[in-house]
């Protein structure tokens, strides 16, 4: 595909968007897994388990 003399600006703009959104999605997925793991750890130790004991 021929993008003309300003191709570097076009590809850079798309590159910034792809990298930033990939980082954002990665951060959200990692954060979700971390919170889920923390809940499982607390419940496995029986701490804060009043809810599960009820």
């Amino acid at each position: 595909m021929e993008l003309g003399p300003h191709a570097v600006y076009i590809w850079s703009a798309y590159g910034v968007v792809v990298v930033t959104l990939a980082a954002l999605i990665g951060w959200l997925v990692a954060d979700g897994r971390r919170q889920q793991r923390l809940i499982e750890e607390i419940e496995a130790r029986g701490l804060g388990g009043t809810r599960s004991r009820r």
Partner: protein
Amino acid sequence: MLVMQSLTQRLANPSNFMALSARLLPWCWVVAAGLIGSGLYLAFFGSPPDYQQGQTVKIMYIHVPAAWLSMLIYTLIALSSFGLLVFRHPLADVSAKAAAPLGATFTFLALATGSLWGKPMWGTFWVWDPRLTSVLILLFLYLGLIALRSSIEDEALAAKLTAVLSLVGIAILPVIKFSVEWNSLHQPASVMRLGAPTIHASLLWPLFVMALGMTVLFTALQLKAMRNEILRRRVKALRRIAATSAADLSQQPAE
């Protein structure tokens, strides 16, 4: 109206929200990927170069949706803040907190892609123009909301103060909207305007598909961020219960 009220009442229970969002999320990811993929195909293979800007118009397909979302997300934060302060909706603060980093990200993308579009078109990456400057202020506002919340330990107080700041900050949105009419280098509105869009249909359709795709992507990101925040609050609650139980046990006299 009644349906909306019933939905917001049902979603006031975080467990209902978690169940509903778990079902919605996979669909949002798939629809967003499909729309963005189709939009990119239309943008690169189905739309002509602009008669003035040539192929650099391709940047429009990511710049304009990011700019729209930067304002849409701020509107969502302001509405959520209103919901927290007036109706004390349990998920309102979760929504406002989750949306702030997403809004900052899309505002950064609007500025970065705009800057990369500006260099070949205006001859400079940056100029202290009313539109660019007001969007930069919006980015600082998002960062301010995040910083204010994280600087206050009392979560309820942090939520209220952040909500007040976000409602005050909504004044930036009309400034951004009308700034292109104030001796700005930025081109005037060509899609969201009174009357028909001034942009040709061959460029408008890929833009529309990309904007829709990015909006669905934001919906997925927001649902995911809200789920994370609910889990984070659950962790804190469980730790509080654990600490209280431990304190109760230590106060019981030994038999």
